[in-house]
C-alpha cells in the first residue's frame, strides 16, 4: 500500500500535510504518536470515511477500495440488546465463509450473552473477531490492545503474526510501544502534521530508548507545572 502526498484537515486545521508512506505487502506496520497527532484520522482516510484534502492511496498500483479493508475502530459500534453471536452473524453477512464458533476459539467469549453485559475488553475482542470474519487483504487496527487483558494481548499478537504469514497486510496503532516492537516489521512515528520517522526492526531498541528519554524529559516538566497549579496559594 502506498500513501502518496497525503494532506488531511478539519476545516482550517491541518492535521497531516504531505505524508508519504509505503506499507510493504504481507507486513505489519505500527503507527505511534501522541494523542491528536492524526493516527486515527489517517486510518479513517485510508478506509475512505475521511476525505483526503490532497494525495492518493494505492493498493497494488490501483486506488484502494473499502472492500479490500477490514477496519477495527478505537470505539466499536454494537446494536443494543444483541448477543455476541448475533454480532458475528452480522459480520458474516459480508463473508459467508466465516465460521463463528471457529473464530471464537481465539477468545472463548460467551457469545450467547448480550454484548451490553460485556466488559470493555470483551467488546474489543468481539470486534476483533468481527474484523477477522471479514477476511480482507488489508487490516487497519486502531488500538487493538486497549482494555484487553494480558493473555488476550498475547493472543492478538499471535493472531496478527498468523495473519501476516497468511498473506495479510496490517497497519495498527498502539500507545504501548512494547506491543508494537514485538510484532511489527516497521514502526512509523507520526510527529507534527504527519511528519513521519520510520524505524526498521533492527532500530527498535534505539526507538524505545529515544522515546523514553524524549517523553520523560518533556513530561517531567509538564507534570510538575500542572501539579504546582493545584497547590494552595
Amino acid at each position: 500500500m502506498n500513501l502518496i502526498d497525503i494532506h488531511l484537515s478539519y476545516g482550517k486545521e491541518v492535521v497531516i500535510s504531505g505524508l508519504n508512506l509505503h506499507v510493504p505487502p504481507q507486513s505489519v506496520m505500527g503507527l505511534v504518536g501522541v494523542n491528536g497527532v492524526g493516527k486515527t484520522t489517517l486510518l479513517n482516510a485510508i478506509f475512505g470515511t475521511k476525505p483526503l484534502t490532497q494525495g492518493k492511496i494505492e493498493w497494488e498500483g490501483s486506488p484502494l477500495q473499502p472492500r479490500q479493508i477490514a477496519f477495527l475502530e478505537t470505539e466499536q459500534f454494537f446494536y443494543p440488546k444483541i448477543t455476541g453471536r448475533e454480532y458475528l452473524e452480522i459480520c458474516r453477512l459480508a463473508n459467508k465463509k466465516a465460521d463463528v464458533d471457529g473464530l471464537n476459539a481465539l477468545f472463548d467469549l460467551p457469545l450467547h450473552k448480550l454484548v451490553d453485559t460485556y466488559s470493555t475488553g470483551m467488546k474489543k475482542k468481539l470486534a476483533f473477531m468481527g474484523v477477522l470474519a471479514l477476511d480482507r487483504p488489508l487490516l487497519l487496527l486502531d488500538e487493538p490492545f486497549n482494555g484487553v487483558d494480558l493473555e488476550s494481548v498475547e493472543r492478538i499478537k499471535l493472531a496478527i503474526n498468523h495473519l501476516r504469514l497468511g498473506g495479510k497486510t496490517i497497519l495498527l496503532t498502539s500507545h504501548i510501544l512494547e506491543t508494537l516492537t514485538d510484532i511489527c516489521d516497521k514502526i512509523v512515528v507520526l510527529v507534527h502534521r504527519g511528519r513521519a520517522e520510520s524505524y526498521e526492526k533492527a532500530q527498535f531498541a534505539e526507538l524505545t530508548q529515544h522515546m523514553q528519554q524524549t517523553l520523560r524529559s518533556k513530561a517531567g516538566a509538564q507534570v510538575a507545572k500542572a501539579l504546582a497549579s493545584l497547590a494552595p496559594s
Partner: protein
Amino acid sequence: MRISFFFLKLHARRWYRYLSEIGLVHALFVLGLVVFGTYAVWAQVAQGRQYIALIVLPLLHSLQYYRRDHQFLVLLGLSVAVPYRLPYLVLALPFLAMMLAVGHWAYLALSVAAIFLLPLLHMRPFLPHNWFLQLGSFLPYRLFEWRCGLRQYGLAIIILWLAGAALSVFPVAVPIVLFFLALNTSVFQLMAEPKEMLTAMASSPGHLLRLKAMDQLALHALLTAPLVALDLWFHPQYWYIVLYVVVIGAVTQVQAVVYKYSLYRPGQRFESDSVFQLLVMSSFLVPFLLPIPFWVAVANYKKSIRQLTPYF
C-alpha cells in the same frame, strides 16, 4: 432480501428483549399504548382526515435520524439502506393499510416512496465539520446537555423550527412541530454525565433535579416561544391547542431529566430513551391515558432521588 430479513429478525429480537427487560406489566402497557395510538389514528382517518395517517413518516424519520450504525455498516461493506427498508415497511404497515382501506392512493404512493428513500438519508457528513460546533457555544458550560445536543441534533431542530415558522399560517403546523421539537430536545438527556459533575453542580439529589428540570424547561421555552407566538398571532381562536402542546412539551422535558437520573450510571448512554419519550408523549393523544405522563414523571422523580443519593 436475505439481508433485509436478517435485520428484520434481529430488530424483532432486540425489541422482544427490551420488552422482556421492562417486565410483563410495563410491556403490556407499552403494547396497549401502541395499539390505542394506532386505533386513535384510524378513528381520525375513518372520519375523513386521511392526512393524519401520514404521521408515520415523521415517526420513521425520527428512527432514521437517530440511527448510529451508518459507519458500522460501511465498515462491513453492507448497504446502509437495505437493512432498514423492510423494518420500516413493517412498522408502517398499519398506516399503509389505513390508506389502502380508504383508497387514498396518493398518500399510499408517497409513503411507500418515502420508506424506500428514507434509509438513504444521511445528511450530516455533507455539512462543514465546524458548522455545528458553533451551535450552542453561546450557552454556559453548565448547560452541557444543550451544548452537545444542539451540535448533534441541531440540523433536525433547525429544519423543524424553520418548517414550523414557514407553515405557521396553517392551523395544525405549529402544534405538530412543537410536538416533535419537544421529542428532539428531550433526547439531549440521552447521555449520563460523569459522577464528579453531579456534585460540582448541586448539593443534593433534589437540588440537582430541580436545577436540571428548570434549565431544560427554560431553554425549551426559549426555543419554542417564537413559534407559539406565531401560532397565537395567526390562529388566536385555537389558543387551547397550542397551550395543550406547550404542556406536553413541558412535561416531556421534565420527564427526560427524571428518566435519565432514575437510571443514572456514570457515562451511560440510554439507547431507548427517544422511543420511551415518544410513547409517553403519545399518552397525551389518548384522553383516558392523560394521567400517565404525570404519574410516570412523579415515579421517576422518586426513583431518581434514590438512584442519585449514593453519589452525593
